[in-house]
């Protein structure tokens, strides 16, 4: 887990001192500002928002607000639109995060080597992250548009598609557009975080392994991956949660269409909240999404703890 100190003599001494040095109040001092901020600014509105799930809140009806118990949840159970949206969410989130991660990790590995022009290349490949998401959506919508964008022509010329129609207009292929846009936008995130983590792995570990005759792949598997794993777990976890909740690109590029084929849970919540004006039901859907994501988070975190325990 760290450099290979000769710990046999100093270890008991350091641990004892360590225990003495960690005073009681210290951890709370460091984490207090964070806790206060989160509780006051987010948890209070969050609880209010969640409470709407049990009430009948119609946005523009000041007389609504009565308690309805689990009615919304019962409605959700039978809601076909929700189930379709959930499936789309799985596809959308899975494909986006997996591909962003893979391409981002490859990029980080490529940039981890010193080479002439590295600084320039690095600066350039990270630029997509600086673009606001709705501009990303508009930009890619234009790229996919047969009248004003080059992509339909190129895809047709490369025999990837069999006509020059807009991918975004057909229910089977519409989700590809936002997924590609999210990959373009999200690669820098994984590339930057992984690169920073890669650079904190001591180079002599690799040197020692090379001397021992380990191949590049073996080094990757036994040195890089395990040391990278904690960062990977957190970034994948957070990115998944964000993407699952992220409706911007879809709303801008396809508005959930055609015929709801790109409607995800996040965009469905928006529709229910701001078109049907039913904040109660929307909060209920959001609460269910929250629970699903929380279960997912617990799974990832247990995995992470397993990996870290195996390392030490």
């Amino acid at each position, binding site marked *: 887990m760290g450099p290979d100190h000769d710990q046999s003599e100093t270890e008991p001494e350091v641990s004892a001192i360590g225990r003495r040095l960690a005073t009681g109040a210290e951890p709370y001092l460091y984490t207090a500002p964070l806790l206060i901020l989160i509780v006051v600014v987010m948890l209070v509105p969050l609880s209010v928002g969640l409470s709407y799930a049990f009430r009948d809140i119609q946005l*523009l009806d000041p007389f609504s607000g009565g308690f309805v118990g689990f009615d919304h949840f019962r409605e959700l159970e039978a809601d076909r639109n929700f189930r379709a949206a959930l499936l789309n969410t799985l596809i959308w989130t899975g494909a986006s995060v997996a591909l962003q991660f893979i391409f981002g990790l490859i990029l980080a590995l490529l940039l981890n080597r010193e080479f002439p022009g590295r600084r320039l290349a690095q600066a350039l490949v990270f630029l997509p992250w600086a673009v606001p998401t709705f501009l990303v959506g508009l930009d890619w919508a234009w790229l996919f548009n*047969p009248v004003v964008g080059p992509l339909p022509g190129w895809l047709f010329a490369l025999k990837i598609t069999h006509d020059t129609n*807009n991918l975004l207009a057909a229910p089977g292929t519409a989700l590809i557009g936002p997924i590609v846009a999210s990959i373009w936008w999200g690669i820098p995130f994984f590339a930057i975080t992984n690169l920073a983590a890669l650079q904190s792995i001591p180079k002599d570990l690799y040197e020692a392994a090379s001397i021992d005759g380990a191949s590049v792949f073996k080094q990757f598997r036994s040195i890089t991956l395990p040391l990278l794993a904690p960062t990977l777990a957190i970034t994948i976890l957070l990115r998944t949660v964000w993407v699952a909740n992220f409706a911007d690109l879809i709303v801008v590029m396809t508005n*959930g269409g055609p*015929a709801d084929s790109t409607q995800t849970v996040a965009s469905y919540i928006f529709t229910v909240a701001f078109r*049907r*004006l039913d904040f109660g039901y929307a909060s209920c859907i959001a609460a269910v999404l929250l629970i699903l994501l929380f279960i997912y988070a617990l799974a990832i975190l247990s995995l992470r703890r397993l990996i870290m325990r195996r390392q030490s």
Partner: protein
Amino acid sequence: MRAALGLAATALGLSLSTLAQATTTLKLVEVITSPERTETLKNIVKTFEDANPDVRVEITSLPWGPSFEKLATMVAAGDTPDVVEMPDVWLALYANNGTLESLEPYLKTWQHTSELNQRTLQLGRVVRSTAYMLPYGFYLRALYYNKRLFAAAGVSAPPRTLDEFVAVSKKVSSLPGKYGYCLRGGAGGVNAWMMFGALASGSDVFFNADGSSTFTEAGWIKGFSTLANIYKSGLAPKDSVNWGYNDVIAGFYSGTCAMIENDPDALIAIAERMKPDEYGVAPWIKGPSGKSFPTIGYTGWSMFANSKHKDLAWKLIATLDGVPGNLVWNRRIGALPIYTAAVKDPLYADTRFKAWFDELTDPNVVPMVMPVDLRAWALFASSIVPRTSQSLLLGQITAPEMAQEWAQIMTKAKQSQK
């Protein structure tokens, strides 16, 4: 951190100084925002401020895209303006909850009330027969057509009937890469469905006496399937299933599709990008019954019921909708006027407006008002119609099935709003 404190201090200082001057501040919110409109609005508001020296008007311009959500959030949290720009489709949502102030008492004593054309007051009063808004202009559909494409396809004149419309579309679509009709399959496409339905059925009656919807009648269904077939047989671009307002206009002026039905305000965008000999405007087509039913929409000004300066707010509305103000406004935004005398204004003598005025004077043209008085209409138009009509266009459902679903929703909405 210091910057934040500095900002807070400045804000405090500013608010204290305004108190000291004892000026009244009126809050005005515009929702259909563009740089040109905001400028025109500011000019009109300035004339109001000049006439009322101790009143200041604070204009908030919401970007149109998210304006509905934004205004709804503000209102739900109690942050309401005094005067707001109110589109017809939102009216029922706000007016039915007592959020808006009735303008009837003010209209009774207003000098210009008698000069308004009868449509103005009629449409302002759709909710509970009370004027919860005073319209500033009307949006009536007409047929824009591309003269160049017509010439290339051998079409000599714009279509006047439904059958001619389909025939012309076929001719233009035979040109490579070109299409006859710019279909609006995405947001805001409800007008076209209603127009085609009414054309085929020969009537603009949405509900029977008992409140049940007429959508399941054979005529309406035929209209729906005619429009769907235009798409399915390739007379509209394949993309158009997802097209919104901006896309159809762009499709038209880029020369991709030859015909579009739209309001006079689209002239602004089109005239900027096309030369006068490239496009023309004709009255909307007539159906087999010999009648035409272009939809008519409207936007206006409303006052919030919790305004603390109601009389002043009315004065502001009166200025905005008054004789000089309203004309300046409509000149900028391209809507049809609310005053009977305005038809004589040189702006409307322009040949490009001829089509609309022909429509207004033709007894066989019946401007169709959609059931915006129903609270459920906003959701129906913005969410249900795009989704179900797209399913129809893509062949996932049939026209009778879509009509059935629509009828159920409409009947329920009408009958529950007694």
